[in-house]
């Protein structure tokens, strides 16, 4: 089915571990985004990508790494997880940059102990 899927849906890991969140879209949208959602903060942009091999920092990029070797995939890696990175992570895609409509995945709930 067409759409945007994130995996895993839930993840528990320990401080200092590396963890990768996956995002896959089937629309061939050029733009992809990673947001984190925390209570009291709304959604904040971590990284975004305009096309394969083009990525840029968002509002809160520290502690995160992204790559985009293929248009359809946009993984987000926490190289050394910290408790402050416990959050719900949403991936989104859009055919254009803002103000294009963004389509969100179902999110990954990440807990770091």
């Amino acid at each position, binding site marked *: 089915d067409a759409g945007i899927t994130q995996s895993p849906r839930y993840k528990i890991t320990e401080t200092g571990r590396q963890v990768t969140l996956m995002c896959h879209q089937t629309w061939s949208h050029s*733009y992809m*985004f990673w*947001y984190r959602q925390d209570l*009291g*903060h*709304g*959604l*904040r*942009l971590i990284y*975004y990508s*305009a096309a394969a091999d083009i990525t*840029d*920092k*968002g*509002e809160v990029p520290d502690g995160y790494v992204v790559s985009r070797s293929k248009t359809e995939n946009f993984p987000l890696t926490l190289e050394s997880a910290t408790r402050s990175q416990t959050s719900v992570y*949403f991936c989104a895609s859009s055919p254009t*940059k*803002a*103000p294009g*409509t*963004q*389509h*969100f*995945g*179902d*999110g990954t709930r990440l807990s770091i102990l």
Partner: protein
Amino acid sequence: QQPVQSPQAVILREGEDAVINCSSSKALYSVHWYRQKHGEAPVFLMILLKGGEQKGHDKISASFNEKKQQSSLYLTASQLSYSGTYFCGTEVLDGLTFGKGTHLIIQP
């Protein structure tokens, strides 16, 4: 910088109206409205563009005052299905930054 939303929460009876406000400290070129139900992804409602017309979606409409850097979302004759958290988003870099959200609870 994230836009500021008000109120933080609203409790309504089915059929009542609600207004959710969104304001920014910087110039706005567009305002985006999304709704999120608990445990689900945010879902797009509408975009308001600078110089554009007021938008509507069923009984949900919105306005955009560019000079005041504000937008308002109007929910008319609210239905139970309108419950959720409403976010306004404004452009940052090539993506969006969202307000903290307004929790809307509709009671029968």
